[in-house]
């Protein structure tokens, strides 16, 4: 009997344990279900977030693409502008050189005209023209002719090089040779070469208005002077104008001075008698 009671008690105890186990199992299952519920909710949340993020990323990519395209356009514009400015700079540099050359020529012209009109001695004027042709124009061989009104010929008044040996009597008739032709027509003549063949490379009439009073013929330039530029042509023509008036005024002054001395001589002679 006692044994049965113990068995019954043992069975109760085991059933209690079993019940306790079931209870725990139930609680655990409930906990698992709750966790499962939470996780499912989290999955839904994450999926939603993922969709949102994809949208945001897509939008951002689109924005960056647009920005990139705008930047490319800007870069292209700046590149074009850079090349334009570069070209403009080159153009300005070239213009600067040209202006510098023109300034140089103007300075030369100023000094030349100042020197030409600073004397009334015909020999000094001729010397001055020679200096200008060598030092400013860079001529190695040239001839300065003045018109002899009595014979209508060109007379060699100054030269550099071998021109005197080539000319008979140092005179050229109007219309004869290029020098005579230039004196006759009053038109300047320029060739492209630097006169290495010994031929005339420039022949300029010395004119006062339309009256030709002389001719400058340049036969050869200095070795380092490659040729005459259009600026040289202009400078030579301007110089020719100054040289012509300086030559004529010095000749007239010398003539007037000589006449004055003659008259004074006569007057003195009359006074003595």
């Amino acid at each position, binding site marked *: 009997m006692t044994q049965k009671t113990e068995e019954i008690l043992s069975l109760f105890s085991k059933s209690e344990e079993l019940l306790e186990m079931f209870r725990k199992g139930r609680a655990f299952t409930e906990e698992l279900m709750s966790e499962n519920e939470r996780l499912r909710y989290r999955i839904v949340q994450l999926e939603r977030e993922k969709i949102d993020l994809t949208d945001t990323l897509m939008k951002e990519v689109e924005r960056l693409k647009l920005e990139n395209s705008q930047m490319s356009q800007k870069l292209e514009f700046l590149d074009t502008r850079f090349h334009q400015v570069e070209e403009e700079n080159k153009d300005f540099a070239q213009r600067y050189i040209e202006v*510098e*050359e023109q*300034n*140089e020529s103007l*300075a*030369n012209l*100023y*000094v*030349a005209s*100042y*020197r030409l009109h600073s004397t009334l001695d015909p020999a000094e004027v001729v010397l*001055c023209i020679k*200096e*200008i042709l*060598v*030092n*400013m*124009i*860079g001529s*190695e061989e040239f001839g300065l002719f003045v018109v002899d009104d009595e014979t209508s010929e060109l007379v060699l008044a100054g030269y550099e090089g071998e021109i005197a040996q080539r000319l008979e009597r140092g005179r050229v008739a109007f219309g004869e040779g290029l020098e005579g032709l230039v004196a006759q027509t009053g038109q300047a003549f320029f060739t492209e070469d630097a006169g290495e063949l010994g031929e005339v490379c420039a022949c300029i009439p010395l004119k006062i208005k339309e009256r030709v009073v002389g001719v400058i013929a340049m036969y050869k330039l*200095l*070795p*380092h*002077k490659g040729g005459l530029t259009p600026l040289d042509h202009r400078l030579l023509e301007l110089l020719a104008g100054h040289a012509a008036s300086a030559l004529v005024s010095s000749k007239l002054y010398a003539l007037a001075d000589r006449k004055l001395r003659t008259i004074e001589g006569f007057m003195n002679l009359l006074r003595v008698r």
Partner: protein
Amino acid sequence: MSKKAFLVVDDSATFRQLLCMSLTRLDGISQGDITEAVDGQDALGKVRDNNYDLVLTDIRMPNMDGLEFVNKVRTELKKGDLPIIIISTKGADEDIEKGMSLGASGYLSKPISMTKLRELVSDCLGEQA
């Protein structure tokens, strides 16, 4: 450019005037900074009595030519540091070579180019003209 003294030597008054005008077109140089001499002899006396920073001399001149002048400045006056630029009428002739061997600092050919003059003056003075 700080204040400098220049000596221009040439028997041609026209060229002297032109050279003076060209120099005054460089920054900081005025007419008062430039002295003129008519030949080598005249220049030698001026170099002996004064201190110049740069001398520009023609080669072919009466009395004393530019080459003799350079030689005397270097040997008699013992002014080895004085920059002297020789100016030749012909481009690359023997005169230039001789002048350079005698102690010239540089050379120019007539007609003078403003660009070359500026470069040479800057080189000789060791500063931006």
